[in-house]
């Protein structure tokens, strides 16, 4: 139902700049991407309309299936593993153990380091010939390890995801801020009632910060869906496209001067992202753990 508001003119005036920016920087570019996805275009010659041929061609390619699958794995890994870890650490730090402030800083530091530097560091760690991981495993097991973590089908994707998942600092800080804003009186009352720490966390903390956690999951999954940087730097999508993502595939298509196909992938990326995020919000975001509508 539309609510009548005597200030509607002012509301429109104040919303106009944002609406103009949204149209300029999202609606128009997305419209352009969609239109160019229907074209044969090398970025140099004029566009040529070819209908949905780009879509048909890409849907036949196994690389697209692999990339969509990998993007979903990325989104789920970041959404559930990374946020799960961030939540656990935030809950622990909120109990103010010794050195909790130092630990909070330590967890957050990687967030201020360039993603490129971190990816290159991990690439060296995973190297088959001189990597630290093989050296440590050799030391522990007493056997010679020379596994090519980024060059084997079975380990390449988990290796990249693992190094990304463990950087929880950003989301941990957000969740921690939420947890620490909960009045201590809740916990004092719970303790008087004989609630254990586990019960306090699951029945007080988790429901109160659930909205924050779902927001963090949405952000993490959105990042997973558009993931590019670490994969590009560490494997370039290999071995044999096994770690490819939609963004990387789009980048490769641009390199091959198939800009129409690159736009097709861009359109698919937006659609997949929309489906995943809406599904997340429908399943986790609508109800709080206390059963109240959000």
């Amino acid at each position, binding site marked *: 139902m539309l609510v009548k508001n005597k200030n509607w003119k002012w509301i429109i005036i104040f919303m106009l700049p944002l609406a103009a920016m949204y149209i300029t920087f999202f609606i128009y570019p997305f419209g352009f991407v969609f239109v160019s996805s229907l074209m044969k*275009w*090398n*970025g*140099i*010659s*004029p566009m040529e309309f070819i209908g949905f041929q780009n879509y048909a061609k890409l849907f036949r390619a196994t690389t697209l299936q692999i990339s969509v699958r990998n993007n979903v794995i990325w989104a789920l890994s970041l959404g559930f593993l990374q946020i799960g870890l961030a939540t656990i650490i935030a809950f622990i730090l909120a109990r103010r153990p010794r050195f909790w402030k130092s630990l909070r800083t330590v967890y957050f530091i990687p967030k201020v380091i360039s993603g490129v530097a971190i990816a290159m560091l991990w690439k060296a760690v995973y*190297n*088959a*010939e001189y990597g630290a991981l093989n050296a440590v495993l050799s030391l522990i097991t007493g056997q010679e390890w*020379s596994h*090519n973590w*980024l*060059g*084997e*089908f079975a380990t*390449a994707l988990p290796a990249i995801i693992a190094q990304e998942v463990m950087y929880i600092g950003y989301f941990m800080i957000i969740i921690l801020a939420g947890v620490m804003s909960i009045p201590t009186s809740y916990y004092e009352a719970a303790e008087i009632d004989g609630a254990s720490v586990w019960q306090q966390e699951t029945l007080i903390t988790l429901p109160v910060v659930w909205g924050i956690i779902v927001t963090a999951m949405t952000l993490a999954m959105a990042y997973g869906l558009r993931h590019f940087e670490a994969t590009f730097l560490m*494997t*370039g*999508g*290999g*071995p*044999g*496209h096994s770690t490819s993502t939609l963004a990387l595939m789009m*980048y*490769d298509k*641009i*390199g*091959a*001067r*198939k*800009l129409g196909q690159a736009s097709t992938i861009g359109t698919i990326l937006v659609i997949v992202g929309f489906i995943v995020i809406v599904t997340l919000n429908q399943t986790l975001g609508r109800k709080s753990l206390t059963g109240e509508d959000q």
Partner: protein
Amino acid sequence: MKKFTVFSIVLIVLFAVLAMPVVAGGQQESEKKEVVLNWPCIWVGEDAKADAVADIVAEFNEKHAGEIKVEIEEMPSYDIYDKKILAQISGGQVPDIFTLKWNPDTKDFYSGDILVDFSDDLAGGWGNRFDSSIVNEVTIDGQTKVVPYEMAITPIWYNAELFAEAGFDGFPETYDEFWDACEALKANDVTPTSQMTGGANAWTSMLWYSHIMASVGGPDIWDKPLSDPAYVEGAEILKRLYSNGNTTKDAIGGGPAIPSGHYLAERTAVFCNGPWFIGNIRDNAPEVYESTELTSAPAAAGGDEDAQVGFIQTVLASGATDDPAKREAAVTFLQYMSEPENVKRISMDSGALMVPKFSFSASDEVDPLQKKFVEAQENASFVVSHMAGKFPASVVQEFGAALDQMALGKASPEEFVQMLEAANE
């Protein structure tokens, strides 16, 4: 009415008075206006040509102070450079000066009015600085829209000392001998070859495959379609280079630093690259530099011998403009860049082989390894382009991924070639 007329006259006079200095200043400014040429440049940072190019640009700017100024925009990554240039061009912003790799896709840039056509300028004497056959190669439908600048010969590099320690006086001439040498090297704890499947085009292995194909398929190999059995025969040899410890484990997925790093550290005995790498090896691994010899790849069974891989590596181009002064400035700069003395400086500094003609004097201290490149080219029975120079980028991109699968045993040589064929559709 009278009031309105007076008001109008006052307004016009006021406007004229206010506009006068602006117009006059604008005229003065246009007379003195310095033409600024933007050059997104890959020859920066650690690149072997960086110092010489920076000096030449600085000297040009000094010589043309107040008239022309070339501003270098540093772009140290070759892979990203190509995409940046394409993104700029597709957005209608063609750089004033830029470089391109010469391959089948480069010819797309000839369509439309994107680039300056240098054909008239080259006909006016400038063209004498180039080998006419090379100018003809970059001339399409009578238009020469690029200036051929850097050429390459990419022979097989081998560490003669490591081979001698393994009991080989020279480089094997056939693959049967080569596999024997590989076993001997491995017995000495040396990995035989440097390879890579990563990067934009799996550069080192793509060059190896080009060498193999030259021997298997002869001088006209790239005229044959990918359905030709020669490609599978070549793939079988390439697969063996990745088998039995003939290359390092990190070759799969490895970028350009992997093969070069292993060769410089004497962990591998055989490498493949162009002359631009001379500066790097000379500065970073002097002992390896001293031990390095250049040769052709072994001959495949029943195949051609002493073939080499060579190609036009880089061309210079300039974005088309309606401004005659800017066009003239761009041509002036490119002519300066191709002056024999400047080309010689870049070549001597970096070891690169250049297209514009120049000659060394008796007093010039030409790098010994650079001389070996020239000899390798002269001794070749024939020279073919590398694969990336003859196939579209989509095939070249797929090469690394297909090689990953073949090297890891997920694809046979036949399937490897089928993947390339699929990418070529």
